[in-house]
């Protein structure tokens, strides 16, 4: 009973508070792993002995301090390892820490749905449920070879171990808690997203392109403000019937240059060839973000490219001074 999984109940707009809250955890143990946007894992192996309290008791202390110092409530799961702590978190409520009993791990897991395991996403859990393996108990009971046939050799083995309660993971201090609000995490890759909804079903390609242009401009500006570059751009088109089409393209070089982002977004949009599709929203996401100083840039003999980048730089400075709407592309001004 040494690892806690904490989820702070942060309102979405104040995700920036996470680093401070991580600091709170670090008062108990140096082994803290941030799970952005609002969670963290903490290994209390040493702390239990140091404070003379069990992990569950420490969980109460953490909650009290989070409430007192930051005014933020939290839910906490406890378990022998990080995986089990995360499973336990699903059952925890504010004030009630859910702990996995160390000697009855398999029983604890048996009735839980497969999707409760970290690392089992919708696709895997759908596959497993199709074959009747809807609880972890059933997964543990199924032959390893069958599991491997279902979801692949490595994931099958890992799933089988996890479902049997074998938790090989450990808490890895990552220290880097992302300092920006609106920077979300999915699968460990930081992303930046912007959405352009339409009030009615929109079919007009010109209005689509305007939306894309403004979205790409916004993304570029935000990336530059963060000193980041993005490696891939994803376009999601949402339709009236609540379905969506997603296209991802890797940029030729990681960049935060609005013109390059716009070009890529237009390319993806044109490839869809939409005509009668009832578009309700366009979402543009910048993915695989990396620090701007690590980005390379192919120089050319074409002076235009150089000029455009310098104009952009100047425009950014104007925006910094007079607000984000001070300079916009002419196409959006009308």
């Amino acid at each position, binding site marked *: 009973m040494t690892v806690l999984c904490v989820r702070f109940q942060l309102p979405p707009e104040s995700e920036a508070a996470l680093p401070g809250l991580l600091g709170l955890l670090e008062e108990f143990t140096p082994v803290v792993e941030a799970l952005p946007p609002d969670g963290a894992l903490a290994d209390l192996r040493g702390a239990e002995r140091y404070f003379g309290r069990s992990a569950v008791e420490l969980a109460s202390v953490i909650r009290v301090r989070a409430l007192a110092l930051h005014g933020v409530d939290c839910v906490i799961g406890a378990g022998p390892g990080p995986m089990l702590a995360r499973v336990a978190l699903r059952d925890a409520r504010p004030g009630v820490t859910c702990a996995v009993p160390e000697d009855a791990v398999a029983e604890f897991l048996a009735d839980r749905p497969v999707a409760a395991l970290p690392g089992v996403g919708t696709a895997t859990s759908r596959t497993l449920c199709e074959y009747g393996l809807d609880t972890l108990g059933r997964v543990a009971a199924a032959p390893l070879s069958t599991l491997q046939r279902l979801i692949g050799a490595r994931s099958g083995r890992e799933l089988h171990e996890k479902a049997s309660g074998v938790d090989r993971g450990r808490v890895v201090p990552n220290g880097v808690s992302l300092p920006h609000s609106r920077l979300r995490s999915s699968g460990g890759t930081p992303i930046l997203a912007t959405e352009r909804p339409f009030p009615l079903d929109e079919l007009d390609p010109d209005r689509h392109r305007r939306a894309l242009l403004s979205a790409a401009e916004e993304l570029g500006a935000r990336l530059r403000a963060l000193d980041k570059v993005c490696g891939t751009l994803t376009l999601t088109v949402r339709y009236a019937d609540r379905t969506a089409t997603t296209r991802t393209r890797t940029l030729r070089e990681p960049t935060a240059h609005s013109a390059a982002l716009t070009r890529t977004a237009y390319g993806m949009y044109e490839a869809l060839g939409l*005509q009668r599709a009832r578009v309700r929203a366009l979402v543009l996401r910048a993915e695989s973000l990396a620090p701007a100083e690590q980005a390379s840039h192919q120089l050319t003999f074409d002076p235009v490219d150089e000029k455009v980048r310098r104009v952009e730089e100047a425009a950014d400075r104007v925006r910094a001074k007079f607000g984000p709407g001070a300079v916009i592309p002419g196409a959006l001004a009308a």
Partner: protein
Amino acid sequence: MPGFTHLHTVSGFSLRYGASHPERLAERAAERGMDALALTDRDTVAGTVRFAKACAKAGVRPLFGAELAVEPPARVREDDPVRRDRRRTPVRGGAFIDESTPRVTFLARDGARGWADLCRLITAAHTAEALPLLSWDANHADGLTVLLGPASDVGRALAAGRPDRAARLLAPWREVYGDALRLEAVWHGRTGTGPGSLRLAARTVGFAAEQGVRPVLSNAVRYADPGLGPVADVLDAARRLVPIDPAGELDSGAAWLKGSDDMARVAERVVEAAGFRRETAHRLLEQTRATAAECLVDPEDDLGMGSVHFPEPHLVGAGRRTAQRALASRAAAGMVLRGHAGKRAYWERMHHELDIIAHHGFASYFLTVAQVVDDVRDMGIRVAARGSGAGSLVNHLLGIANADPIEHGLLMERFLSKERVVLPDIDIDVESARRLEVYRAIIGRFGEERVATVAMPETYRVRHAVRDVGAALSMDPAEIDRVAKSFPHIRARDARAALAELPELRALAGEQERYGRLWELVEALDALPRGVAMHPCGVLLSDASLLGRTPVVPTSGEGLPMSQFDKDDVEDLGLLKLDVLGVRMQSAMAHAVAEVERATGERIDLDALPPGDPETYRLIRSTETLGCFQIESPGQRDLVGRLQPATFHDLVVDISLFRPGPVAADMVRPFIEARHGRAPVHYPHRDLTEPLKGTYGVVVFHEQIIDIVAVMTGCGRGEADRIRRGLSDPESQGRIKVWFAQHAAANGYDAETIQRTWGIVEAFGSYGFCKAHAVAFAVPTYQSAWLKAHHPAAFYAGLLTHDPGMYPKRLLLADARRRGVPVLPLDVNKSAVAHRIELVSESEGLWGLRLALSDVHGISEAEAERIAQGQPYASLLDFWERARPSRPLAGRLAQVGALDAFGANRRDLQLHLTELHRGARGGGGGQLPLAGGRKTAPAGLPDLSEAEKLSAELGVLSMDASRNLMDDHRTFLDELGVVSARRLREARHGETVLVAGAKAATQTPPIRSGKRVIFSTLDDGTGLVDLAFFDDSHDTCAHTVFHSWLLLVRGVVQRRGPRSLSVVGAAAWNLAELLEVRAEEGLDGVAARLAEPPAQDASAPADGGGSSPARLAGSDGRPAPAGSAARDPMEDRRIRMPTGYEMHPWADLRPAGEGPAVGRKLWHQSPGSAG
């Protein structure tokens, strides 16, 4: 100033384009002082007949024409500067509907020749592959006037500011049409130079003067009244399948049927803008008038209304003789063949009938029908005549009708007499599954130039209107679906009235305001055609001139030639129509007979069954008649239970009594009373004993009325039938009464007898049923009941394969189980494409029913065929490789146990299939782990639980094949104290009971009291429970009954006879919800749910009653027909019949919800269920 004539007007028959009905256009033209009006619908003349009739009524001269898309001539196409590059195929949503082809208006000018040209052009346009397009080669005609408007290629060149190009494009048109060419100027008040702009209109007039082509003025009318622009926008959106774009180009709102003065002002503006003096406007109007005056097509003479055209005699086996001679000799041959040669009465009747036929010259018609029937029979297809034609001995002798009319007392006069001048009507029933084969055979026999099927316009009703308007207004699709499905299948114009009045719509009415303009637009779409389908039974037969009288277009699915006119139109046009009905029951019986022969070698001749089979009648009397033709509905089962038929005649009477007429005139009760001796039999006079004897003195049949009138007045049966037809009209009824009294008195009947007889004639006269119909219906009824009694397994196999009845298949399966027919599961090694029978126990001779592959969800015909061909399969691998099922299909087969024979459990099989699929995709033959030779190795996955298996059966087969789905809920139902259908039979009259089951059918038929009653049938595994909800319970129950699949109902038992039993519902709950509550919260949760007040009450608006008339008065939004607003809404729409029988306005409609429960919906979605 003489009136203006609109030369370019479209009606609603221009699908999703025109917004007004042709009748409305004709009325408005008359109101606005116009003497003539043209109807030029897009690609069709389907509105012609209705338009011509309306014009005749309104006193307006009709002009006929059509607007067609025309392909530019080849030389123009080549130098077209605009190259259209191919667009990428969209990943979603589909491509735009291409409406870029130029459109031109054609007007029929020279009488019949003009009309024939118009028909030919439309037929030619519809031979194009995608949308109708007239190729340039086919674009020539002598009898037509052509209007080149803004949508034509010339108009477009002018709009683009290219008079030079316009001149070049005009040249080929002038070559073809010369002096019959006109340039059409249209001003809709738009700006710019596009269609409808003043500048384009002016350019057109100027261009016409320059080129020496006569200009005309039109308004390109799309709707009759101003203010319908938004409706036109919705129609545009529905046609182009896009939402309305408020920022895009909307309808100008000016395309209405403007009056002469308005058009004169338009003419002035146009000529002024063209640079002429204002006075020249009258010359433009004069040209328009002259063009209209030239177009002379007379509806009677030129369209052929009122004359008849039969196929030529040599085509129907008359050779060089006249048709009448051929008919007489065939009839005589039939006398000998059927053994009537020695009977004098038959000869007399035959000659009498032949006289009548000769009198009308209908001999070719009889020979034509006989020819068709012979051809169908030669193809080995079951065929039977229905309708009044069965009353003719000649039809019997020609082999058209099976029943002997003299034996059954059927009258020729009901069908055809010298006094009747309308076309006789013989309907023939064929097997539904082979209906198209029959059509092709008819076409093959008479040739494409004489045969066409009949169109059936599909019109907007409320659900489609909500869907199309909702999509145009960018509403959320899920929301549209919900709103549309909450409505019963009512007229679109009643949408707001229904919201105000129907209890099951109260929740929706509460949020009515949220949808804004939706309701107004929905009501405006009312009854506009939205598509054209092939009529399910009508076939036109004519002489070789057919294509000159109707345009023929290919049907979308089958590619059969179809006339653009619907069934009423073709009668008016004097086109001979033969109704060839596809009857599923005939297919089902044919399948059953074929199965018996395949499995046992026994040949059953259904047409030669022994009459009066006791077991058959025992079955019918037991009321377990599910699946039997005509007597399976809840009402019929009730009636059969009370009537207890014992002979064929009883069946005939039973079928006749269960018709709206007899039910309305209350013939049922006196008949039942007299039949069981509870009331004495009365005859008004002893002379009338003979006709009324068979029905205990109650008038049931039309034939009896004919006889009564003929006997009392001595006027002859032909005249008597004419009198009978007059009875339904209250005006002529008065005259007939006087006439009847005079003649009867002259024949020596006393006043009291006359009065009593007249009372009967008056009450039942127009509501009886034609006995010939009933006899024709009773034959398949007896045949199907005989099959059910003697070959139940084969009978169910036929029913399940062809699905003829009103009940879902799962109910038939439940019935089969109840009657002891073993239901054998699906098995890829044993099941065939269709349902089959299989010997289960040799000793008892018990036959079981093997489920069919074709019932598996998503199986294609080819796949089913391939699986059946490849049997037997040794292993899963063998099956996969030879039957080559798609992956999802194989998965479904595994789920329902069709692959159980290959070993392993159903989930293991799924895994193997996935791997086989992956292996096949990867190209390398995957190694399948085998155990014990051919068996598939288990993979250790958990098998489907029993509940999951049932769920899979419902999902895949839409049937609970292994056991009844209600069985699983038995414990809960026992806790509630629910009475099963079997135990209900012992319940006392007036007892309050709880019943539960899966909803099998829901109806709101018209009934005598004029109230709306919801009838519903529940199936609980032990039998059927028939429910009735009267209107005092509708507020609380209607929504639940219409929108739930599993129902729990509290009600009172009603008994009307030993076998007649129903439950009058007082409260209803959604059983599926209760089951969930029971599982999650236990019995206390259920109690809490039952204690809640019914949900419907809470949402009812407090002022619901008071506000509804007010809402209705203004609900039209448009000028309402005078006087309608002031009256009480219910009073206005309640349909009153002359007998004092009132019909509830919402009765007789397909109710709300999605019909009876099938498949998945009956089952809760369990988290672990497969697939």
